[in-house]
C-alpha cells in the first residue's frame, strides 16, 4: 500500500501545482523581497552587463526604478535574460513580474498572448545594417540578399512585409539571440542584418570592424518598445505604467536625481509636490508608499538622465527624435500625476 500512498501524494502535488495562480503580483513581489525582471541581457544601451557585471541599460534602469518605487531600494531586483521566443511565456507563466525587454506593442500580442503593454520607454523603427564593401546605399537594392534576423520578433514579420511590398526576394537566416545574430553577420553568414535601429547601433559597436558596416537610411516600421505585464492584475499594471510615467513627468518638471531632495523641500509647484509625495496620496493610491516616485528618481534618475546615460553613448541623438518629450518636439507624453 506504500506505492498507493506515494501515487496519491504525487497526484495531489501535481494537481495543486496547476491550480489557478493568484493575481496579486505586488504582494508576491513584496513577500519575495525582490522584483523579477525579464530583459534581453545582450544589447548594450538597453540591457547588458557592465564592466562590474551589473545589468545596465535603459531597460534595466526601468527595473531598478520600479524596484525603488516598490521597496525604496533600487537594488532589490533580479534579472532574467530571455530570448525573443521565451519572453512572453516567461511573463505569463509567472517566472518574471515585468518584461522590460525592447518589446514591441502590437495588437496580436496584446489581444492573444495574455499580456498587457504599459507605455513606451523607447520608440524605435526597424532598419538594415550592411557591410560597406557591398556598396549598397538603400534598402531597395537588397533583392536577393541573405538577411540575418532574430527569431520570433516583429522584425521578422516587418522584413517579410517590406520585401513583399517592394517585390524583392530574400532568404532569412534566423538566429535565436541577438548575440548569435551579430556573430552570424560578422562571420559572413548573411549580407544584411535587420533589427530595430537602436539595436543596430548597439550591435554595430560590437562588430569586429564597426567602421566596415553601415546602417541604411530606411526605417521600415514603427516599434514602440516598453514594459509589459501579465494580463489580469490591474493594480500591478497601474504600478508598472505609472512608474514609467513618473520618470517622464519628472523630466518634464525638471526634477532629477541631483535636485530631487531640494525640490522636495522647497518646490512650490503642486505638480512637483504631488509627484514627490509631499502633497496628496499618489503613491498610496497605487498601493505603494507615498515617496515611490521620489525613491525612483533619487536612485535611478528621470527619463532624460536614463536616456543620456545609456542610449546617448550608442550615438542615438535624442534631440529632434520622436523620443524627445512632447514639449521638445518629440512624442513622449505622460499623463499628469494628480
Amino acid at each position, binding site marked *: *500500500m506504500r*506505492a*498507493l500512498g506515494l*501515487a*496519491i501524494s504525487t*497526484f495531489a502535488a*501535481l*494537481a495543486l501545482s*496547476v*491550480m*489557478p*495562480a493568484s493575481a496579486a503580483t505586488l504582494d508576491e513581489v513584496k513577500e519575495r523581497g525582490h522584483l523579477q525582471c525579464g530583459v534581453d541581457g545582450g544589447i548594450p544601451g538597453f540591457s547588458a552587463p557592465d564592466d562590474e557585471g551589473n545589468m545596465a541599460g535603459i531597460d534595466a534602469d526601468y527595473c531598478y526604478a520600479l524596484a525603488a518605487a516598490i521597496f525604496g531600494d533600487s537594488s532589490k531586483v533580479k534579472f532574467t535574460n530571455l530570448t*525573443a*521566443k521565451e519572453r*512572453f*511565456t516567461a511573463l*505569463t507563466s509567472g517566472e518574471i513580474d515585468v518584461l522590460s525587454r525592447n518589446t514591441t506593442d502590437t495588437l*496580436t*500580442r496584446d*489581444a*492573444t*498572448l*495574455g499580456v498587457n503593454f504599459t507605455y513606451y520607454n523607447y520608440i524605435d523603427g526597424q532598419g538594415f545594417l550592411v557591410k560597406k564593401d*557591398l556598396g549598397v546605399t538603400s534598402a531597395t*537594392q*537588397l*533583392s*536577393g*540578399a*541573405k538577411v*540575418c534576423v532574430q*527569431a*520570433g*520578433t516583429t522584425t*521578422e*514579420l516587418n*522584413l*517579410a*512585409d517590406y*520585401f*513583399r511590398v517592394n517585390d524583392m526576394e*530574400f*532568404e*532569412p*537566416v*534566423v*538566429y*535565436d539571440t541577438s548575440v*548569435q545574430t551579430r*556573430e*552570424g553577420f560578422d*562571420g*559572413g*553568414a548573411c*549580407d544584411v542584418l535587420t533589427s530595430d535601429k537602436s539595436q543596430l547601433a548597439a550591435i554595430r559597436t560590437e562588430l569586429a570592424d564597426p567602421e566596415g558596416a553601415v546602417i541604411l537610411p530606411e526605417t521600415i516600421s514603427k516599434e514602440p518598445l516598453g514594459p509589459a505585464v*501579465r*494580463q*489580469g492584475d490591474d493594480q500591478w499594471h497601474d504600478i508598472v505604467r505609472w512608474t514609467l510615467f513618473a520618470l517622464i513627468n519628472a523630466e518634464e518638471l525638471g526634477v532629477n536625481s541631483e535636485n530631487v531632495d531640494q525640490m522636495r523641500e522647497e518646490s512650490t509647484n503642486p505638480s512637483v509636490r504631488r509627484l514627490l509625495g509631499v502633497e496628496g496620496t499618489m503613491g498610496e493610491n497605487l498601493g505603494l508608499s507615498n515617496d515611490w516616485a521620489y525613491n525612483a528618481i533619487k536612485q535611478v534618475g528621470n527619463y532624460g538622465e536614463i536616456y543620456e546615460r545609456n542610449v546617448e553613448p550608442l550615438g542615438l541623438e535624442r534631440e529632434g527624435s520622436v523620443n524627445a518629450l512632447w514639449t521638445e518636439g518629440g512624442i513622449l507624453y505622460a499623463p499628469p500625476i494628480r
Partner: protein
Amino acid sequence: MSRNNRIPFYRNPVYRGIAVQITVLALVLWALYTIFTNTVANLNERGIQTGFGFLTETAPFAVGFSPFIDYKLGETPYWVVFLIGIQNTIIVSVLGILAATILGFIVGVARLSPNFLLSRFASVYVEIFRNTPLLLQIMFWNFAVFLPLFPGPRESITVGEEIFLNNRGLYLPKPILTESVGAWALLAAVVMGIFAIFAFNRWAKAKQYHTGYRPPGRLYGLLTLVVLVFLVFLIFPAPLSFEIPELGRFNLTGGIQVPLPLFSLWFALTTYTAAFIAENVRGGINSVSKGQTEAAASLGLKRPTMLRLVIIPQAMRVIIPPTISQYLNLTKNSSLAVAVAYEELVNLWAGIALNQTGQALVIIAMTILVYETLSLLTSGILNWYNRRVQVVER
C-alpha cells in the same frame, strides 16, 4: 479444497491487485482532468486564446530552407510550415544517422586496431567528442571554424566552374530531366542497371553454392549499368541538363544548395554521435569471444576479412540495441539547430511559429507528437532489423 480454506475477496491478492490498479487509474484520470480544466481556466483567465484555427492562416514570415516543399511568402499557411519543419528535421537526422554510422564504425574498429597510432588517435577522438557539450560543438564548428574558414560568395572555392563552396554553403549543379524520350530512356537504363546488379549478385551466389567459386557478380551488374547509361547518352544527345549555380548581386542562386547551417549541424551531430557509436562498436567487437578470432586466424583469414565475415556479424547483436538509442538521440539533438539558424522543427515550429502565434499548447503538443512518432518509427525499424540479425545466431 474445503470451504474453510477460501479466503474473503478483500484479502484475495488477485482482487486486491485489481482494486489498486483501478484506484491508480482513477487517480491518473482525475489528475489529467484537473490539469486540463485548470489549464483551460488559467488560459481563459489570462486572456490567452487557443485552438487549431491558426493552422490554416497564412504564415507572415519567410522560410529560408525547404528543398522539397514549396514555400511562398504570403501564400503558405502555417500547417505547411509545420511540414517543412518535419522535413528539415528528417533531412538532417537521416544524413546524420548515415554519416555517424559509417564514421562510428570506422573509429570503433580503429580503436581496436593493432596499429598503435591508429588506436590512440581513435581514443583521443572519442574522448574529446564524447565529453564536450554538443551545443558548444555545433556553435564551435559553425562560428569558429566554417564561417571564417570558407570565403565569401564572391571568392567561392570552385570546382570546374560548376561546384561552389563558400561561407553560405555548398552549391552543386542540379540535374534536370528534360521531358523527352531520352529522359525516360535514361530512367529505364538506371532501373535496369540496378536490377542487373541484383540479378548478377543472385547468380553469383548460386554459382558459389554449386561450384565454390564466386564470380564478381556486383562488378558485372555495375558494368551493365554504366554501359546502359552510356548507350542512352550515345543515342539521345541531351537526356539530362544541369542547372549551374550563378552568382547574383549577393549570393549564388539556382542549383542544389546545402546551406552552411545544415552542413555545420550535420557535421557536429555526426562527429558527436559517431563517438558514442564507436564505443558501441568497440563493446560489440570485444564481446565476441577470443576463440572466434583465433579460429578465423587459424583459417588464414586476413584481419579485414576476419572482421567482415566472422566478428562484425556476431558483434551486431550487441551493437544494435544501444545504437538505436544513439539514433534517437541524434534526432532529438537536431533540435539544437536554432543556434546556427538551421530551420528544423523546433526552430521553425516550436520557435518562430509559436512566437508569432502564441499558440504554445497546440504547437508544443504537435512537436512532441512528431518526435514521439519519429522515435517510435526509428526504434521500430531497427528492432525489426535486430530481430533478423538475432535469428541468424544459434
